[in-house]
């Protein structure tokens, strides 16, 4: 009981985080009909700087890290990515209407990771003094890519089953050279490559490699790190405005997506916390690292996942997965960060 009260107190304290207030503020001014628009060029620059910052920080840390420490958490991340999508396949997809692809793609987006949620968690933990292995943010792609791959494979299987003669020539549009015929095995390599070529993951990977081999510590400390928190506050305003704007879209798809958008982050975050806790017991993965893993699991991809899915599962309706993720999943995941921090406070008796 005491533990629960402690938890509630910690949660309440966390919820007042200024970072989250920018998110709510963005929603509020959008709801009030503001004409404020953050230019797209600024948004894209912010994403690049945040991802470079996360990559550089992790890369610098990996230089000194014991690689064997990373193995187990990376495995946990991949298991979460695959597992979340499988859960979605079994729960959301059957409920989501005649076309299972919509549900599968949505599960893929929720299995993947949101860069902005990850960044927000890093700042909130810093505000709270909760430390994590500096390489922990680099677990991102270990969860993101397996989740997207799993969704794509499941979608192909679903289509192969539903239309065994698959005569439609729904050729893959755009850059991802995925064969559309149901019978063909999906080619994994090109999808991974395509995924890594997206703007966010490219920047993360660039930062990671430079951090590991180029000693960019001066520019990291004089530029990337100081801008991190400020750019994140602007990004939160954008995410809030966007969440509000997409709500209308969500209304056009089945009700179940909204339910999934609210519950999935909490369930997935709980799973992430649990697996992270096992890694803590096994190899001493830090409490902060456990929280980050929970946040990645809870988050749903808003920037880089959707285009990969759109290219590879052209028959899935983007209004479903983008609406569920941007309008509900991401705000819920962001607001759940304090939950995982408070849980860590209690579980690890910080």
């Amino acid at each position, binding site marked *: 009981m005491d533990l629960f009260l402690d938890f509630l107190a910690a949660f309440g304290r966390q919820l007042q985080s200024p970072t989250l207030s920018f998110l709510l503020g963005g929603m509020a001014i959008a709801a009030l009909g503001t004409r404020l*628009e*953050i*230019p*797209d060029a*600024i*948004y*894209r620059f912010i994403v690049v700087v945040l991802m470079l910052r996360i990559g550089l920080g992790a890369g610098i840390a990996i230089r000194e890290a014991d690689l064997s420490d990373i193995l187990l958490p990376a495995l946990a991340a991949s298991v979460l990515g695959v597992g979340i999508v499988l859960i979605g396949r079994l729960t959301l997809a059957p409920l989501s209407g005649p076309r299972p692809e919509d549900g599968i793609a949505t599960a893929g987006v929720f299995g993947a990771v949101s860069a902005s949620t990850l960044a927000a968690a890093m700042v909130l933990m810093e505000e709270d003094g909760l430390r994590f292995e500096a390489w922990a943010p680099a677990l991102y792609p270990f969860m993101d890519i397996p989740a997207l791959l799993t969704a794509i494979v499941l979608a192909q299987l679903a289509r192969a089953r539903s239309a065994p003669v698959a005569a439609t*020539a*729904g*050729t893959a*549009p*755009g*850059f991802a050279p995925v064969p559309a015929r149901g019978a063909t095995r999906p080619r994994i390599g090109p999808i991974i490559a395509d995924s890594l070529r997206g*703007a966010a993951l490219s920047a993360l990977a660039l930062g990671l490699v430079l951090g590991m081999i180029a000693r960019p510590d001066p520019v990291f400390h004089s530029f990337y790190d100081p801008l991190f928190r400020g750019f994140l506050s602007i990004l939160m305003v*954008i*995410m809030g405005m*966007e969440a509000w*704007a997409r709500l*209308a*879209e969500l209304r056009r798809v089945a009700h179940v997506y909204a339910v999934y958008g609210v519950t999935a982050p909490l369930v997935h975050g709980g799973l992430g916390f649990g697996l992270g806790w096992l890694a803590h017991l096994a190899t001493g993965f830090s409490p902060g690292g456990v929280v980050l893993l929970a946040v990645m699991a809870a988050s749903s991809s*808003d*920037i880089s996942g*959707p*285009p990969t899915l*759109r*290219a590879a599962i*052209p*028959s899935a309706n*983007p*209004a479903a997965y*983008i609406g569920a993720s*941007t309008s509900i999943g991401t705000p819920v995941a962001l607001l759940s960060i304090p939950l995982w921090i408070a849980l860590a406070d209690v579980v690890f008796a910080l």
Partner: protein
Amino acid sequence: MTTPAVKLTVIVERLLKPAVERLLTEAGVSGWSVFPGGGMGAHGLHRAEAAQLVREFAIVKIEAVVHDRAAAERIAETLTTDHLADQSGIVWLSPVEVWRAGKF
């Protein structure tokens, strides 16, 4: 002085831009222009200059002036059948007169 030609205009999400450009190249079209924009359609609103979380879903207009109307029609046909079947996007043709006909 001028030569009649046709202009093929394609409005799609940026995601499909590479596919459209591949089609144009394969059809031997000598050039085209690209203009970023926004729009409203069956798939809802795409804002023009404001932050858009997913850049690949932004709207672009691709314009290609071509000499050979039949070629333009073939490109449009392939596009609408193969790529725009369940995707955003519209295609139209309009008459133009060009100078320096050799360029097209």
